[in-house]
């Protein structure tokens, strides 16, 4: 026994082993938590970062040759082939990758040479050909996949879906003033014929075919005629709403849906030299300004119901635009600058997707309809192609945070509208109303929860009898265990309609409650001491509860009479009539009550622990110096517990910011920026819950939702860090207390 003082039994060894295991496991657990949080953060960042990626252009395929003046030069929808229809009516397809001709056939045009051809509809395989005779012919190109020996091979099939006979247009087309629009099953042709008549020199024709189906002949169309004073130079239509007549010196917007009136809804005067292009969506015109800006102008309905052209924020250009070209399928515009340089711009954000060196203003561009490939056919016929990666190019700081004037809207605004019905829908991703809604919900909830939770924490911890505290505290904490979906459900289906009915009563109750409580406390102090001392100290709350409930009940009963006397009609009508404040059933008041109720137990519990944790000897020290209980509370207990109380508030705030179910159910989820207490909001968390399941993976929408998740994470992280810093200072100041 000389070598060791303490012989080790098996038990000691086991204990040592457990100690060592714990010493390893505990840091591992800590690092595990850190790693999990970092991993969540990195994942959110990883899903968000592609939003910041700059657009890139890569040369693609082999150089080729095409006729830059051919009636049709375009790309197929995937961007694999360059499609060309030459003046003799021969259709040629060249593979962009190899430059080889993979298809060549003379179209059956009945011998008439084509004047111009164009794709019908924003995507699809239908093409229209305007013949020199003024008749219109249609052909379709399809790329069915054929399996031979297990290998998929794309083939090319040319067809004439409406038959081989050209469509003769009544009245005849003047020049190439013809325009087509195809949506679902309706094909509309708009064209201008020159006539001599008492009402003018030209006629606008609308020829509409219903129940159009590829492979079946066109049914007889409906034909509308509108006399025009003069023939416009061009017609343009890319959306449901507008048919634009371009006279060179002015643009006229006509209702495209066969309006009875033969009048333009809005007119914009222009210099004839202004380059112009109608953007995808068919509402916004991009106009080149001589000073190097691109105007974005669209018809907007004003307060009187009249339409006029309005300009959204212009895009800046390094030089004046010489020519503008519209791009299919995307809100993009191809700008040829004064120096001859070409740029493909995202028209919503102004981002440059493609920049090509000067090779003259002539020639043309061909795009596929996904916006991923561009071919440039120079004036001399040389063809070069690029692949563009610009998935999220329409986003910008301006779009996410500032007021944006979206086409068709009466004024710039913060709008979140991530999906719409049509293919030409423009997604609107303003985070400002969501951020505002998040903060509004959290702050209103804190406004309700803070006085309630801190007041009850102070009372329970400091004044209440231990016996009462023993069951009050767990009861309140039990509320925190209640699933928030139940609170949300109750709030939405029971509380919201109730408050809608008794708005005035609720409001005066909320306002009167603090005063009532103070008043009752004061009255209590006036009671004879003999009576007061019969209530055990700390049980006053129970005794005072009865008169408080009575007073509230009386207030509720008096409220309707008071309401009708003061406001003559209902308070809600008065609010609307006098202040223009509208009332929604799901509003910030309900959110404050329900969410506030949900976070109260959390704040209460932590704050109560902090106050209980202040050592009695400090209170006794103050009392021994002649302080009252109230003095000691204010001057000693609350400062000493301040770090814990701050934690309680920050954790409550964190819960309020991140809470999802309640806000999902009681806010109404209206993404409007409204500070009103009587209107709802949409929060980041509810927005993610609503939209993420529907968002296409890796789409801009999907990544913007991840961005909001990242913001939510950052908000709570920053708030907690700030609270931790303040808490650290408070702890330092109040030393090694508790």
């Amino acid at each position, binding site marked *: 026994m000389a070598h060791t003082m303490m012989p080790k039994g098996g038990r000691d060894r086991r204990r040592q082993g457990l100690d060592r295991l714990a010493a390893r496991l505990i840091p591992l657990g800590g690092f595990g938590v850190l790693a999990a949080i970092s991993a969540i953060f990195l994942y959110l960042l990883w899903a968000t970062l592609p939003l910041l990626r700059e657009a890139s252009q890569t040369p693609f395929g082999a150089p080729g040759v095409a006729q830059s003046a051919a009636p049709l030069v375009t790309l197929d929808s995937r961007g694999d082939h360059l499609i060309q229809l030459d003046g003799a009516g021969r259709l040629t397809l060249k593979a962009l990758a190899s430059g080889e001709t993979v298809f060549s056939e003379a179209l059956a045009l009945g011998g008439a040479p084509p004047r111009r051809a164009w794709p019908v509809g924003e995507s699809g395989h239908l093409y229209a050909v305007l013949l020199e005779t003024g008749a219109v012919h249609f052909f379709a190109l399809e790329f069915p996949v054929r399996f031979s020996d297990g290998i998929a091979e794309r083939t090319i099939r040319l067809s004439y879906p409406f038959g081989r006979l050209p469509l003769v247009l009544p009245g005849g087309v003047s020049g190439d003033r013809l325009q087509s629009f195809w949506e679902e099953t309706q094909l509309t042709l708009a064209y201008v014929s020159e006539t001599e008549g008492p009402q003018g020199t030209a006629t606008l024709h609308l020829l509409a075919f219903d129940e159009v189906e590829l492979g079946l002949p066109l049914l007889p169309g409906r034909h509308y005629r509108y006399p025009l004073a003069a023939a416009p130079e061009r017609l343009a239509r890319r959306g449901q709403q507008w048919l634009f007549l371009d006279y060179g010196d002015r643009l006229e917007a006509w209702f495209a849906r066969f309006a009875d009136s033969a009048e333009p809804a809005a007119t914009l005067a222009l210099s004839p030299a202004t380059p112009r292009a109608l953007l995808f969506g068919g509402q916004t015109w991009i106009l080149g300004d001589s000073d190097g800006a691109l105007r974005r102008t669209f018809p907007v309905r004003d307060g009187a119901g009249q339409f006029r052209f309005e300009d959204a924020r212009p895009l800046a250009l390094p030089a004046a635009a010489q020519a503008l070209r519209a791009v299919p399928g995307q809100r993009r515009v191809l700008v040829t600058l004064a120096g001859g340089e070409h740029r493909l711009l995202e028209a919503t954000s102004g981002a440059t997707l493609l920049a090509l060196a000067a090779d003259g203003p002539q020639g043309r561009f061909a795009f596929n309809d996904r916006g991923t490939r561009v071919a440039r056919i120079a004036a001399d016929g040389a063809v070069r192609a690029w692949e563009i990666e610009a998935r999220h190019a329409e986003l910008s700081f301006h779009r996410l945070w500032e007021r944006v004037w979206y086409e068709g809207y009466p004024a710039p605004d913060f709008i979140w509208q991530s999906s719409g019905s049509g293919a030409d829908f423009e997604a609107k991703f303003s985070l400002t109303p969501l951020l505002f809604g998040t903060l509004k919900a959290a702050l209103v909830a804190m406004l309700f929860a803070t006085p309630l939770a801190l007041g009850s924490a102070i009372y329970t911890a400091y004044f209440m009898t231990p016996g009462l505290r023993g069951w009050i505290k767990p009861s309140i904490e039990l509320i925190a265990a209640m699933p928030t979906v139940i609170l949300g459900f109750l709030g939405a289906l029971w509380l919201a309609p109730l408050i809608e009915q008794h708005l005035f009563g609720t409001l005066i109750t909320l306002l009167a409650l603090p005063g009532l409580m103070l008043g009752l406390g004061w009255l209590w102090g006036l009671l004879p*001491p003999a009576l007061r001392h019969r209530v055990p100290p700390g049980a006053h709350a129970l005794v005072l509860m009865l008169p408080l409930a009575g007073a509230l009940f009386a207030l509720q009963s008096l409220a309707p009479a008071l309401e009708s006397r003061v406001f003559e009609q209902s308070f809600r009508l008065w609010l609307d009539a006098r202040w223009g404040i509208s009332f929604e059933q799901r509003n910030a008041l309900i959110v404050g009550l329900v969410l506030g109720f949900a976070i109260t137990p959390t704040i209460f519990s932590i704050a109560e622990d902090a106050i209980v944790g202040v050592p009695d*000897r400090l209170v006794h*020290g103050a*009392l021994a*110096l*002649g302080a009252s209980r109230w003095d000691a509370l204010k001057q000693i207990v609350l400062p000493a517990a301040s770090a814990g109380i701050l934690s309680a508030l920050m954790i409550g705030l964190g819960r309020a910011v991140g809470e999802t179910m309640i806000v999902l159910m009681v806010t109404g989820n209206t993404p409007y920026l409204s500070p009103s207490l009587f209107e709802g909001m949409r929060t980041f968390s509810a927005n993610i819950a609503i939209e993420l399941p529907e968002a296409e993976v890796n789409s801009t929408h999907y990544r913007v939702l991840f961005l909001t998740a990242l913001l939510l994470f950052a908000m709570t992280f920053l708030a907690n860090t700030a609270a931790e810093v303040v808490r650290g200072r408070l702890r330092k100041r109040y*030393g*090694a*207390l508790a």
Partner: protein
Amino acid sequence: MTDIPTLTFDPADTCLNVEQLSVSYDGKAALREVSLTVPRHRVTAFIGPSGCGKSTLLRSFNRMNDLIRGVEVTGHIQLFGEDILAPEVDVTVLRRRIGMVFQQPNPFPMSVFDNVAYGLRLQGLSDQRALEREVEWALRSAALWDEVKDRLEASALTLSGGQQQRLVIARAIAIRPEVLLLDEPASALDPISTLKIEELIGQLAEAYSIIVVTHNMQQAARVSDYTAFLYLGELVEFSATDDLFTRPQARQTEDYITGRYG
């Protein structure tokens, strides 16, 4: 025990007069019919084993016992002839007259200066120069001034345990109470700090009536003029300190001071 004579003092020299004081907690007696008089401007020590009621007696003087639930007090205590147990007595005023220092140093989590000024401010003193003068006086009286005069704005929690206890004494005497109650003031301190506190008690006795509760008989012998020995809630013996330690009258006193129990 009735045969053990207790001391009485001339009314002019009496600070506290306790008559038939009984205190019980939830029906359990902690003090039984204790009667004694505490002299003015002297140091009186209460000794006795744990649970003998000496702290209860001390806390009856500034009615800190009121804070304990289920406490019942009968009998009388007079401070310079005034009944302090009467229900109409404002305890906050009473406690300003009877200061108290606790076993554990309990400086408030604020600066040294604010600690000492706390009681003064409670009394409504807000003039900064007057506060500074009073704080300096209190700290000098508590023999702490030289150690803290350059760090008055530092947190009181940065002081050592002994300094904290003298700070608490300074805080108590800053409001110039008539009586100072010390509840085992040195039991949580190291020997050097204890010595300083004991010296301080000796100095303060010139201006205050001091009552010390202590476990430590040597301490009682060193600092006090009079000593009361309590046992099981009863006052066994109260006499001049020298007498009590050299010629104990009661058997229990003798057993206790010779270390047979406690």
